[in-house]
């Protein structure tokens, strides 16, 4: 039998606000345990939550950018359960009436049509703290609780079960990741847990209408692991059914070391969270004015920008895709073309030398030592014939190292292109005299040797000869 996987994703997006969602404590990562706490996020008796408006603004941004409707009156609810990292014994979240509802994203998987994935809801909530075990942070034995992260703002983005493969899941996740980082509401750091994902996976026979029983997979915190975990889980469920077993509803944990998922808790052990509206917070009213103000402050989104790059700068879909991978990269590109550089040339350089150098040095585009101004200057040197494209790469490497202006490097190292036909002719004559045998072979019809002569001339000129002039003169001379 053939099986159809059905996947829905729940993504936790940690918001990049200065302060926590219900108190004024800092959200900075990596401070001394419990140094960023107050009565509110410690859950002390008598403390009360006050909503951080910035979180609402970020939620509206996320909602508008994922085609959601913004709920005019949304409610905070308490999700009740006991755990030492949850100071109040409940998490303030949203249950009924979340801030954003009914959105979608269009995803693109290679070789497939564009597909629309529904977003059920986006809600705001506070994060829990974390447990520290063993002798870390000065703890001598046992476990400790660090509440610095407690009350940090999160958005939970819940998709419809519209995804049908691990590739679709990853494409959806990457697009969502791109949007929230693009909006500047999340730093997107998956290792630090700023963007984390739970996957609901089930399988059903192809053509069936009733969905299979799903398992929820926790702890899949990289794009790679999402793919691995989903694929493992699909196969596990298919194998189970084929062997005459039944899939049970449960929560499973993905183990990145083994690449497998294992049962964490079954349905009967599932928590009854006893959600109810939080009486400490009044309903959140978002009027049309607030929505419009936020909308008008939104940046051009990746998809819109991608389209514009294709029409405005005549770039290919592939180029436009790469250049809009991040807002910073797209901004870099546009800064270059604003300086009157050739768009295609800029694109080639960004995708080539710049990307390579960024990867090699582990830096990001916003700290690229070769600024748009310097890159454009380099491109103009090529365009004007001062240096060849080949020499330009040498110059680029030096720019990366020293941050110097390309013209200065060209001057210092004597890299100016030689276009003077007299000088080039002299070199050609010398080569042809030296390689008389090869000349003979060429003239008797072995055309391929032309490249050999070009190479020899370029080598003899230390790469400085203008390739166009070399070609032209060489052709003439070889004809005899």
């Amino acid at each position: 039998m053939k099986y159809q996987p059905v996947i829905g994703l729940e993504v936790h997006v940690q918001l990049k606000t200065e302060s926590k969602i219900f108190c004024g404590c800092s959200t900075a990562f990596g401070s001394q345990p419990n140094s960023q706490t107050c009565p509110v996020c410690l859950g002390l008796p008598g403390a009360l939550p006050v909503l951080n408006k910035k979180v609402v603004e970020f939620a509206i941004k996320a909602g508008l950018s994922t085609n959601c409707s913004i709920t005019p009156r949304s409610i905070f609810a308490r999700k009740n359960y006991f755990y030492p990292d949850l100071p109040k014994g409940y998490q303030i979240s949203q249950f009924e009436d979340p801030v954003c509802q009914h959105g979608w994203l269009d995803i693109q998987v290679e070789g497939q049509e564009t597909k629309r994935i529904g977003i059920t809801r986006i809600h705001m909530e506070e994060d829990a703290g974390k447990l520290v075990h063993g002798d870390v942070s000065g703890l001598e034995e046992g476990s400790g609780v660090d509440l610095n992260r407690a009350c940090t703002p999160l958005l939970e983005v819940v998709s419809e079960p519209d995804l049908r493969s691990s590739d679709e899941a990853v494409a959806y996740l990457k697009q969502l990741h791109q949007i929230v980082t693009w909006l500047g509401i999340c730093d997107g750091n998956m290792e630090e847990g700023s963007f984390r994902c739970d996957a609901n996976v089930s399988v059903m026979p192809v053509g069936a209408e009733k969905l299979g029983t799903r398992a929820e997979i926790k702890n899949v915190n990289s794009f790679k692991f999402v793919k691995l975990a989903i694929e493992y889980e699909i196969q596990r469920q298919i194998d189970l059914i084929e062997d005459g077993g039944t899939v049970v509803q449960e929560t499973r944990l993905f183990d990145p070391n083994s690449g497998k998922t294992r049962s964490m808790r079954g349905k009967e052990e599932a928590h009854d969270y006893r959600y109810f509206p939080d009486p400490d917070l009044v309903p959140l009213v978002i009027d049309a004015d607030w929505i419009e103000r936020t909308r008008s402050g939104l940046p051009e989104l990746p998809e819109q920008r991608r389209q514009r790059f294709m029409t405005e700068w005549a770039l290919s879909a592939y180029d436009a895709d790469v250049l809009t991978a991040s807002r910073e990269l797209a901004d870099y590109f546009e800064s270059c073309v604003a300086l009157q550089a050739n768009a295609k040339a800029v694109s080639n350089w960004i995708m080539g030398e710049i990307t390579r150098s960024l990867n090699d040095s582990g830096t990001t585009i916003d700290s690229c030592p070769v600024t748009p101004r310097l890159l454009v200057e380099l491109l103009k040197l090529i365009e004007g014939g001062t240096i060849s494209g080949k020499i330009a790469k040498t110059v680029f490497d030096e720019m990366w190292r020293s941050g110097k202006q390309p013209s200065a490097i060209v001057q210092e190292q004597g890299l100016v292109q030689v276009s003077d036909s007299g000088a080039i002719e002299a070199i050609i004559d010398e080569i042809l005299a030296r390689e008389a045998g090869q000349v003979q072979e060429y003239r008797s019809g072995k055309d391929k040797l032309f490249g050999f002569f070009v190479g020899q001339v370029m080598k003899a000129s230390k790469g400085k000869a203008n390739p166009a002039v070399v070609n032209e003169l060489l052709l003439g001379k070889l004809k005899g």
Partner: protein
Amino acid sequence: MELFDLSIRELHSKLKSKEVSSVEATGAMLARIESVEPQIGSFITVTPGQAMADAEAADKRIASGEMDLLTGIPLALKDIFLTEGIRTTCGSRILSNFVPPYSATAYEKLKEQGVVLLGKLNQDEFAMGSSNESSAFGMVRNPWDTTRIPGGSSGGSASAVAARQATATLGTDTGGSIRQPASHCGCVGLKPTYGRVSRYGVIAYASSLDQVGPLTRDVTDCAIMLGALAGHDPKDSTSVNTPVPDYAAALTGDVKGLRIGLPKEYFIEGLDPDVQTAMSQAIETYRRMGAEFVDISLPHTDYAVATYYLIATAEASSNLARYDGVRFGHRAEEAANLLDMYVKSRSQGFGVEVKRRIMIGTYALSSGYYDAYYVKAQKVRTLIMRDFIRAFEGVDVILTPVAPTPAFKIGEKVNDPLQMYLSDIFTIPVNLAGTCALSVPAGFSADGLPIGLQLIGKPFGEETILRAAHAFEQATEWHTRKAVI
């Protein structure tokens, strides 16, 4: 007249004229506490050191001429208010070692005026109770008859005023916890409109119902205290940002033409005859002063107690989850694992009534029961609110008894929770409606026990009920009687 007998207004004028110092008044009050406390048990913690330091600071302030109405006045707080550096127990074993790192906004506001803190008052554990018998720190006895309960949950707040152990006190009222003990102890107790006074730093029992209020010797003091406490607090999202009127200025003594509603559902069979008599006399008194009476109906009154015990317990079950022994409070020793630590700490730390309410509330919120209990209760709550909105279209104030009987005997209802719950039958609807009400002394039973009269006002209508209560006080002498200890 002893210094501890003085009202806020009286003591203020003596402090202002430098006839007495705050140190003298505070000293007299501390001595009074020491002498009567063994009979009454109003306090969980007395803070003489803090009190004398506060009094000295107040005297300096008075000397410098920067005096507020409450400067130098010795007060005490229910042990539900967080006081920085001073143990705050909420009447529970689970918080028996809890010394908070911050103070409640209500206390901060009083401190700004330069009050003197005498100590922390006894109460039912987590404000759950109507008799003060559920405190982990012992019962409180009614100063009028020490074989009887003072009412609850702010039992110590009422007994301390009645026994003249504090010039005034603060309590909290979730279902009648200020008004019922005020009625039983013969003092004035006000539950302001929900949102009028900040709840920040007040240990939560039922967040949508809890409200802070004063217990005082008379209505004037009550107005003074409310003026100090009321106002928006950015730390409490449910506190309301409306201007604070001059409550004392509202006490004109004039109730001519005031329309007073008498809800038929509150004058029922089974009402104690002495309470009935006190109500009839009060109505007569108001009539003589020119008030008009209107028969009204609050048709959903019967459902109020049931509704309350679903909503309040549901919220409490969640509010009390933070007492888990992890970060503060009682932690059981020798726990085998995490779950065992939770179970043992909470089993040891909470008393019977608190456990009962946590279980009821947990049940009411459970999957499968939520709609039938919690959601239904919220709908009935809305109906009860509408009852009041409709009634207030025709009247300015609603007059009712505070409690069906005067103070009952210690131990009388402690094993019958339902009977205990019914003692709040007339006060609970006001909390569900979120509006304001007060208790003012209106007579005594044949046994010499105080009986209180409840005046219910419109939301943010505190001025009107204070004015009506003040006029009544002017026309009667109930508030001048003192418990003999």
